Every structure is written in structure tokens, then in C-alpha cells.
């Protein structure tokens, strides 16, 4: 066994354990959920199976008992309780330790030994009255081979004798037992049910077709009917076994199924096929087959199709593990390629050679696709990160004597891998803050008229080229007075400064606040928020805090989807080029000198009757020279506000490979990065919200001096 295989197993085990934990935590909330129980069982089963395969015998042995317990849970013989969940969570931790530990060390681990004892105790408790106790409790040798069993689909026709009910048999129990074996579709045939005048209500007129896909063998099916063996006709046929029988394209035709079942002869089919309707309708209308039989055959067709689709989906889902570093270098190369491509396009256009232009366009199209594909490879759903926090919330809140649930939304939202990785720590910090300081103790909550159980909501959603992540708690909220007092004390604001709530909350992101213990105790926030801010800044994201005293706070993180390449609009002012992120842009309109004059010196213009304020970038960046007679306003939507930016010329769309700015320029406001154009010129990427904020602040300052 090579090390790479063992490494692969370790990686897989960590993933499985993560999933297992999630399933367990969910199961704690809905203990009767069979899907979840199934998930727990399967995860344990896989860990055991692949553990044994890769020589982790200690893990296989340890997991065996846990698996056995969950097999019983699955069979409804053991109930899911909180102690059982706790025990299993500890088992997850133990397995995690074993995966990390040197071989054989784990079995000597006293903790895992006592866990094994506990699981066996659970089994013994259940066993006392139950039959079939012989197999359980036995020590470790895995009973089933770890290889994956084949899924076979059976067609079962169950025709009980009329006196079935009289003998006290409930056919539904039998059917449900079959359902326990695997994916199962049941169709009852009722054509034998007579008219009500002739009906003997105590006789069974119904018979059944059951299509069952299971990993168990035919004997397991026969066992279900063991008590009615003499009171029924039972026919079991294999109709599909993972492509071991005929598997050429689609499943059998309806007529073939009916003939195979003996419901119809081949001649009758051929005759019926003479007309041109759907065969099911023809057969029923001509009275050859009872409608139930047709429906049953259709159900079989459907069942097999679904099974085969599932199998295909499972095969398609097969994935390749690639080291992240390889992906990163791929992205880098695509970035270079994008830059070169825009250069090629420029040269081609300049040359005017049609053949070259055509090739350049083709290359451009392909590279755009390549770029999108490469980016999507790096995209991961944020849900995996979210679910990690369930355990954190559970453990932390229990430790603090608080009742807190974590609700998550939008876990399917995809973000660049690197963004997700760097998001982990800030999110933990924010959630910790909410648990620690935001949400009150149960009694305090009750007094405040809130439910004793606090809720932390973690939500993610897409919006243009950004992802919003919101951490909301229904706790005490921020104490604005305490924040103000502290800020004044630390000289961060003047004693008489008027700040909006938003600005006030933003103060707690300042480094000075992190060490201020008093404020932490009063306001409940400020612990290391500067660290969070720094991480989010590094991701080119922004933080916004809103809060209401007594009802809770929300921290919103706005993050770029990716940090590598964006779609931008290239604009020019004099000889300087700038890129605006395309996602925020609404439209481009002309601005003539006459238009500008109409506004009497105010930077306002009317677009289709709507007054739109604009910012002259030429002025903002103090670029010398005369603006052309006709300028362009690029209108954008920033935080719901329509704002125009005036430039000399709109060059066009540009795939922008983002290069971070050197350290010297890191603190330059209004510029979020730079990119290199095809001809080698550097274009700055504008941070439109920051530009707007800067302009707003300037206007406010002017107004204040104007007043004073």
C-alpha cells in the first residue's frame, strides 16, 4: 500500500467526518429523519470499508461498533437520543485522532476503548428483548466485505390468496419491509375488485407488482414473504443489475415488459401495434390488458430509468483530486493569456488584415471560455465552510450556558476557493463574538421578552460580481453610547462630532478598540474586530455593521467572487486609462458642454427625466488639460444609488486581470488594483464606492465650511 493511497484515504476520511458531523447535528434536531440516519450509517460504513482497505485496521475495528449501532437505528430498533449523538460526536473526534495518529496507536487510546464499550452497551441494551442477538456484540472483524455490493433491480409479483386478511396479515407491513431493502415502487392491481354488491369486504382482491432496487440478494426478498409463503403466489425476476444484463440504451419497451410478465402475448401486441396510438392507450382501449397492469409496467419502466439515471449521475460525479497549487498556476497562466490576447486583438485591429482579425476574434472567444471554465473550477460552495460552524456554535454555546441555534442560508453560493479559505477565520471570529457577547443568557432573553433560544443566521447570496455574507444575531445589539464614549476617550472622534450610526459602528473596526476591555464588557463587541477588517480588506471586501439595541446586530461582508479576473469597462481620460468593474455599470451617455451648463455649475444631469449626480474623474484625479467637447458619463449603481462618472472616452469592455498594487500605493483610496493593457500600459482599477464616499465627504466638508 503506497503512501499516496493512505493520504487519499486520510483526506477522504476528513471529508466524511465533516459530513458525518453535519448529519449528526441535523439528526439531533430531527431524530426521526430516515435520510439523515441513512447518511450517518453510510458515512460510517464508508470510513470502515475504506479504512480496512487501506490498512487502517484500528479505524475499521473502532468504526465497526458504531456502524452496527446505526444499522440498528436504521432498522428502527434503537432510537436516536441526545446521549447517542454526543457519543457519536465523540466517536468522530476519536476517528479523527486515529486518522492523524501513527498506526496502531489508537487502539491503546483509553478514550476510544471506552467509547467502544459505550457503543457495545447501547447494543446490549437493545438486544435483551430482541431476537437475532447472536450476531451483535461480537468483536471487531468486519462482517461484510468492504467492496461495494451490486445493486440489482427485481420485479416482484405478489398475489396473495383471497383469505389473506382473515389470517391477520396486513400487506402494507410486507410492502414497507420491502421498502426497507432499497428503492421500491409499488403498484396495486385492483381489476379483480368486484362491484360493491358482490364485494366481500374481508377478502383480498388486490395483488401487487413491486419494483425493488437493492443490494441485498433474492433471499432477503423471500424472507419478507416467509410468513405468507403458503398464502400467496410469489414471482421474483431480475430485471436490471447494473449493466450486467442487457444495457444497450433505454430500458425495455412497455409492450416487452407486459409480454415478459405474461400479461400479454406477442401476437396480441403485434396486432395492437397496427394502429398508431400510444401502446398503453391502445391496449387498454382494446381491453387486452387492465389499466392497472399498464400502469404497473409504466412504473417499472420509470423506476429503472430513474435507477439508471442515478447510476449515470454517480458516475458523472466521479471527480479528480488536484492539488490547489496546480489550479493556482493554471489561473495565473490563464491570466497571462488574457493579457496577451488583448494585445493580439489590438494589433490585429491596427493591422486591418481581415484574416488576422478573424483569428484574433476566435482566440478571444476561446480564451473567454477558458477563463470562465478555469474560474469555475476554483469555485466552491460556501456551504462546506458554513456547516463547520454548526459544531462550533453547539460547543461554544453549551460551554457558556446559552441556547443558540445556527441557521444557514445560501450554502450553495459559490465563491473562489482562495476567498473561501481566507474567510474561515474572520467568520469564526464574528460568530464567536455573536455567541460570546451578542446573544444573552436564556433568563436575560426571557426577561427581554425574547425566546430563550437565540439564533445566529449565516446567509450568503450572490449579487453581481459580489457575494454578500451576513451574520445576524438576535442578541442585545451594540451600545452606541458606549462606543461613542470610548471613541472620544481614545481621541478617535471629537467630543461634539455628529456621526451617523453607520460611521459609529465602523469605529469598532479600528485597531484601538480591540484591546479596550471596558468597552468589550459594556458594548459586547470590539474584540479583534480590526483583525476581521484586515482579513476582509485583504480580500478586497467591505464590512458593514448594523445594529438595533435590544434586537440584535448584523455584520454584512461584501466580497468579490474572485480575486483574479473581472470583466471591466476600459475608459480614458487624457492619456490615462482606467478600468471600472462592469458589474456595477448601468449605461453610458454623452455629456455635452451645453448639458453641463444647464445645471448651473452643479454636477447633475437629467437622464430620461431622472436627475443623476455625477463625478468628474478628470477633476477628482487632477488631470491637466482640456476636456473634449463631448464627454461620456458612465452611470453606475452603488448601494442602490445611481451615480455617473465623467470620462473623456469609453474604450470598451476589457477582461481585466487584477494585479495588486505595490505596498507604496496600498493605501491609495479609490483604486482597488491595476491591470496591464495589451500594449503594456498600466490601467488603474477604480473602486467606485470609495470614489463616491470620497466625493460625498468632500461635499460635506464644503458645506460645513460654507456654513461656518
Amino acid at each position, binding site marked *: 500500500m503506497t503512501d499516496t493511497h493512505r493520504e487519499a484515504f486520510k483526506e477522504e476520511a476528513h471529508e466524511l467526518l465533516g459530513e458525518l458531523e453535519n448529519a449528526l447535528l441535523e439528526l439531533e434536531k430531527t431524530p426521526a429523519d430516515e435520510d439523515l440516519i441513512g447518511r450517518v450509517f453510510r458515512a460510517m460504513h464508508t470510513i470502515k470499508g475504506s479504512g480496512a482497505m487501506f490498512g487502517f485496521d484500528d479505524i475499521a475495528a473502532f468504526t465497526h461498533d458504531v456502524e452496527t449501532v446505526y444499522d440498528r437505528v436504521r432498522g428502527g430498533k434503537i432510537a436516536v437520543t441526545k446521549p447517542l449523538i454526543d457519543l457519536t460526536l465523540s466517536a468522530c473526534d476519536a476517528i479523527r485522532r486515529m486518522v492523524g495518529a501513527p498506526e496502531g496507536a489508537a487502539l491503546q487510546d483509553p478514550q476510544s476503548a471506552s467509547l467502544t464499550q459505550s457503543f457495545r452497551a447501547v447494543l446490549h441494551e437493545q438486544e435483551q428483548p430482541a431476537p437475532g442477538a447472536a450476531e451483535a456484540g461480537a468483536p471487531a472483524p468486519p462482517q461484510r466485505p468492504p467492496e461495494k455490493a451490486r445493486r440489482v433491480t427485481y420485479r416482484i409479483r405478489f398475489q396473495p390468496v383471497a383469505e389473506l386478511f382473515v389470517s391477520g396479515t396486513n400487506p*402494507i407491513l410486507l410492502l414497507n419491509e420491502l421498502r426497507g431493502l432499497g428503492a421500491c415502487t409499488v403498484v396495486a392491481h385492483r381489476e379483480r375488485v*368486484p362491484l360493491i354488491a358482490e364485494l366481500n369486504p*374481508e377478502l383480498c382482491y388486490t395483488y401487487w407488482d413491486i419494483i425493488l432496487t437493492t443490494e441485498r440478494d433474492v433471499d432477503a426478498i423471500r424472507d419478507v414473504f416467509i410468513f405468507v409463503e403458503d398464502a400467496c403466489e410469489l414471482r421474483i425476476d431480475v430485471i436490471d443489475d447494473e449493466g450486467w444484463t442487457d444495457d444497450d440504451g433505454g430500458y425495455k419497451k412497455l409492450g416487452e415488459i407486459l409480454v415478459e410478465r405474461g400479461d400479454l402475448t406477442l401476437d396480441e401486441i403485434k396486432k395492437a401495434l397496427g394502429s398508431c396510438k400510444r401502446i398503453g392507450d391502445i391496449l387498454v382501449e382494446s381491453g387486452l390488458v387492465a389499466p392497472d397492469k399498464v400502469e404497473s409496467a409504466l412504473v417499472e419502466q420509470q423506476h429503472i430509468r430513474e435507477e439508471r439515471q442515478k447510476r449515470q449521475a454517480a458516475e458523472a460525479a466521479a471527480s479528480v483530486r488536484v492539488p490547489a497549487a496546480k489550479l493556482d498556476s493554471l489561473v495565473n497562466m490563464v491570466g497571462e493569456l488574457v493579457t496577451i490576447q488583448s494585445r493580439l486583438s489590438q494589433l490585429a485591429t491596427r493591422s486591418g488584415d481581415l484574416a488576422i482579425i478573424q483569428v484574433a476574434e476566435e482566440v478571444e472567444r476561446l480564451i473567454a471560455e477558458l477563463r470562465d471554465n478555469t474560474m469555475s473550477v476554483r469555485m466552491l460552495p460556501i456551504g462546506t465552510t458554513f456547516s463547520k460552524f454548526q459544531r462550533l456554535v453547539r460547543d461554544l454555546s453549551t460551554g457558556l450556558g446559552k441556547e443558540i441555534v445556527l441557521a444557514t442560508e445560501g450554502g450553495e453560493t459559490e465563491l473562489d476557493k482562495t476567498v473561501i479559505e481566507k474567510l474561515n477565520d474572520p467568520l469564526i471570529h464574528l460568530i464567536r463574538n455573536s455567541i460570546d457577547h451578542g446573544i444573552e443568557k436564556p433568563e436575560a432573553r426571557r426577561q427581554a421578552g425574547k425566546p430563550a433560544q437565540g439564533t445566529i443566521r449565516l446567509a450568503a447570496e450572490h449579487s453581481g460580481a459580489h457575494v454578500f455574507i451576513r451574520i445576524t444575531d438576535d442578541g442585545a445589539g451594540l451600545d452606541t453610547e458606549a462606543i461613542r464614549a470610548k471613541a472620544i476617550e481614545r481621541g478617535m472622534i471629537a467630543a461634539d462630532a455628529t456621526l451617523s450610526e453607520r460611521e459609529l459602528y465602523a469605529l469598532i473596526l479600528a485597531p484601538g478598540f480591540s484591546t479596550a476591555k471596558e468597552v468589550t464588557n459594556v458594548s459586547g463587541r470590539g474584540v479583534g474586530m480590526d483583525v476581521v477588517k484586515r482579513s476582509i480588506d485583504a480580500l478586497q471586501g467591505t464590512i458593514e455593521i448594523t445594529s438595533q439595541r435590544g434586537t440584535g446586530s448584523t455584520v454584512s461582508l461584501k466580497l468579490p467572487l474572485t480575486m483574479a479576473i473581472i470583466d471591466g469597462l476600459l475608459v480614458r481620460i487624457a492619456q490615462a486609462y482606467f478600468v471600472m468593474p462592469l458589474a456595477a455599470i448601468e449605461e453610458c451617455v454623452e455629456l455635452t458642454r451645453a448639458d453641463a451648463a444647464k445645471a448651473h455649475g452643479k454636477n447633475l444631469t437629467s437622464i430620461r427625466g431622472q436627475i443623476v449626480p455625477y463625478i468628474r474623474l478628470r477633476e477628482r484625479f487632477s488631470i491637466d488639460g482640456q476636456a473634449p467637447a463631448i464627454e461620456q458619463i458612465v452611470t453606475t449603481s452603488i448601494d442602490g444609488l445611481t451615480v455617473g462618472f465623467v470620462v473623456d472616452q469609453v474604450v470598451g469592455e476589457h477582461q481585466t486581470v487584477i494585479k495588486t498594487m505595490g505596498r507604496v500605493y496600498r493605501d491609495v483610496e479609490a483604486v482597488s488594483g491595476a491591470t496591464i493593457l495589451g500594449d503594456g500600459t498600466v490601467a488603474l482599477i477604480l473602486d467606485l464606492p470609495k470614489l463616491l464616499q470620497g466625493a460625498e465627504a468632500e461635499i460635506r466638508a464644503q458645506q460645513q465650511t460654507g456654513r461656518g
Partner: protein
Amino acid sequence: MEIRYSDRGVVRLEGELNIQEAGRLRELLLQAFGEVQELSLDLEGVTEADTACLQVLCSAHKSFLTANKTLTTTGVPAAPFIRTVDDSGYRRTVGCHSDPQRGCLWVIGGGRG
């Protein structure tokens, strides 16, 4: 099983619809079959059901259809009833072929369970 009649030809069945009650259920429906042209069954109050009673309902439906009469259900049947219909494989996506409207007691609440 409890049976309640309302003024609009609706019969409300409540409680357990099982083999012990199948005889009474049959008598009730047989009698109604002889007396009315249209009958509607209200199954909201059913707390338990089994295959025997489903057979009786199915048989009644067939009889009504054969005699050009109407038997329908009203409202949403109780969850235990729907579960029995699903568990016993009685649910259908298309109604009875003998019914011109393709109506059926077993096409309940949309898709197959």
C-alpha cells in the same frame, strides 16, 4: 368508524377505516349507491386505514361509474389515509379508464408519493 351526513350529499368518515369496519363501510356505500346519483366522501377525519377499506372504496367507485353515477372525495384526505394509499401502492397518476373524466379516488394531491 363514525359516519356523519351533511346536507350536500357529503358523507364524512371519521376514525378508523380498517378491516373491522370494512363490512359497515360496504353497507353504507351500497345503500348510498342505491339511493343517490352523486356522493362525495370527506376523509379529513380518518385516523387509520388499511387495504381492506381501500378495496371497498375502490369497489364503490367502480360501481358508481358503471351505473353512470359519481363518487368523489372532497377536501384533503387525512394524512394517515394518504399514507395508506401510498404504502399500499394504490395511488395512481392517471385515473380509472372506465371513468370518462379519468377521475379516480387514488389520484390524490398531485405526484406519486
